[in-house]
């Protein structure tokens, strides 16, 4: 089973303070910690587990600048065999559609049985690349996958629906599956493992090598053009309680008491 996993190098923003930069079209990246997109982490782990069970190879692919090498190294340390980085200054401003086109060019001549992507990315959250890539390759897809069984050229997968419900669908291989968090428990990657992965080669391909033209990538090749970023308007703001932890606790306790909750 040869598996390609598309990964993205993203800033960790769940607990970070986000500032919009002076262009108003993106956020200030300085000071943010970048790592593999959380969903992709599960996708890589799932691919490596399948390889360990059935044999084959795992190749990770990303579209990004040199900074993304650390994410690829992490994947190699986790058990991926090869890493490819698609990089070109002209890729700047690409939306999910353009990214899918770039990935398509790199992937179409590679041997594979399965392609994994994360179900979405933690930064822009479009959840588009996987199924668009499938369409460009002319193969089936299933999104938000929480369980995979492979047999006789078919992937039988559980898709996450709403409210705790799941559905089982079967897709013929080769196929694109977008992986939902919680499908597995990604293994711990040791510093030693990452050091070892430092020696592995990362293949870098640019626009001409991929046979792409300028109007297929970047803003010109995209569906979506960002006009401006802004802080969401606050419809309702909590009343903030301050003081020492003891004082705050006392205030909360008073509120609960007044409402008959204690």
């Amino acid at each position, binding site marked *: 089973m040869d598996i390609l996993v598309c990964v993205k190098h993203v800033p960790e923003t769940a*607990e970070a*303070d*986000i500032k*919009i930069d002076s262009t108003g079209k993106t956020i200030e990246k300085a000071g943010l910690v970048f790592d593999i997109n959380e969903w992709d982490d599960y996708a890589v782990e799932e691919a490596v587990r399948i390889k360990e069970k059935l044999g084959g190879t795992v190749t990770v692919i990303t579209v990004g600048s040199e900074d993304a090498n650390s994410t690829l190294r992490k994947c190699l340390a986790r058990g991926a065999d090869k890493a490819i980085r698609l990089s070109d200054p002209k890729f700047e401003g690409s939306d*999910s*559609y353009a990214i899918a086109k770039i990935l398509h060019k790199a992937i179409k001549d590679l041997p594979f049985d399965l392609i994994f992507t994360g*179900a979405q990315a933690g930064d*822009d*959250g*479009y*959840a588009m690349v996987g*199924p668009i890539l*499938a369409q460009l390759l002319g*193969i*089936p*897809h299933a*999104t*938000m996958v929480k369980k995979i069984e492979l047999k006789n050229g078919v992937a039988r997968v559980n898709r*996450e*629906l*709403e*409210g*705790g*419900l*799941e*559905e*089982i*669908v*079967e*897709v*013929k291989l080769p*196929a694109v599956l977008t992986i939902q968090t*919680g499908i597995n*428990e990604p293994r711990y990657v040791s510093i030693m493992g990452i050091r070892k992965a430092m020696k592995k080669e990362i293949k870098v391909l640019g626009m001409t090598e991929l046979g792409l033209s300028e109007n297929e990538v970047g803003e010109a090749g*995209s569906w979506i*053009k*960002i*006009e*401006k*970023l802004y*802080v*969401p308007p*606050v*419809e*309702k703001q*909590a*009343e*903030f*309680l*301050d003081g020492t*932890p003891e004082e705050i*606790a006392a205030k*909360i*306790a008073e*509120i*609960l*008491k007044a*409402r008959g*909750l*204690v």
Partner: protein
Amino acid sequence: MKEIFILAEHRRGEIRDITFEMLTKGKELAEKTNMELAVVLLGKDVKEHAKTLSQHAKKVLLIEDEKLENFNSESYQKVLSHLIKERKPLLTLIGHTSFGMDLAPSLAASLNIPLATDCIDLEIEDSALMVTRQMYGGKVNVKARLRQAESYLVTVRQATFPAEKASMNGEIIEIPSPLSEEAANKRFIEYVLPPPGGVDITAAEVLVGIGRGIKDESNLPLVEDLAKALGGVLACSRPIVDKGWLPNDRQVGTSGKTVKPKLYIALGISGAFQHVLGMKNSDLIIAVNKDPNAPIFSVADYGIVEDLFKIVPSLKDKIYELKAGKA
């Protein structure tokens, strides 16, 4: 007259809320731009749904086929691309749900029409389409323009617009199914219902919800003690279930449960909309988070910008003090 399509979403015999939410927005857009709102309904034996929907839009385009009994993105894509090519709607709205996320991107790519997903608002200016969506877990809003085209596709976030109330008497137009065979590459097998048993967080009056900020599984007893002191139970956001620290019957949000307790204490939960949708109707919400800009503070009644590990032990002590005082 140009049309605006709303793709009806239904599952296991019920029209899903997102359909009526999209109708609200679709109706507004149709009125503003002098276009005709049409609900597209695909399924098997769904005439009842068609009747219901005809009270919400001028037209219901009904395509019935036994091959459309359960949602299958492959079959749906075939039917919709046929319909979009034929009728050339300016805009098609699909829910940003497990159903729409499986369908919209490949449909858009196959027709090469621009798509924006997970939108919380949209407007048509002349024939250009502007959308509003969120990034970075709801910390930033984005206004974006779609590439100029004859037809656009947008997926709409759940619970963003109020549900449309029945106010029309629309026409049901039956369209023959363009499908000649079952989907070749994708097959629906069955639904898997969540396992019964466990704790029913929807019945609890007090919930202590925990998120990423809890950091480590070893910190669970601390928050469990607080829940106990309050006579409540622990609930959580998605990352806690993904890590296996709590079972998935404790998950609050779109992929988990919707709760409405008398008190919801959110600890270390940033407030991504998926979670917020499941708890925003609680009677009283108190949130503790280190990040003053965490979106959870816009749904909470009271907010505390502080390390939860400093607040929780003090709060637990205070609760017991109060209880002892009472006794």
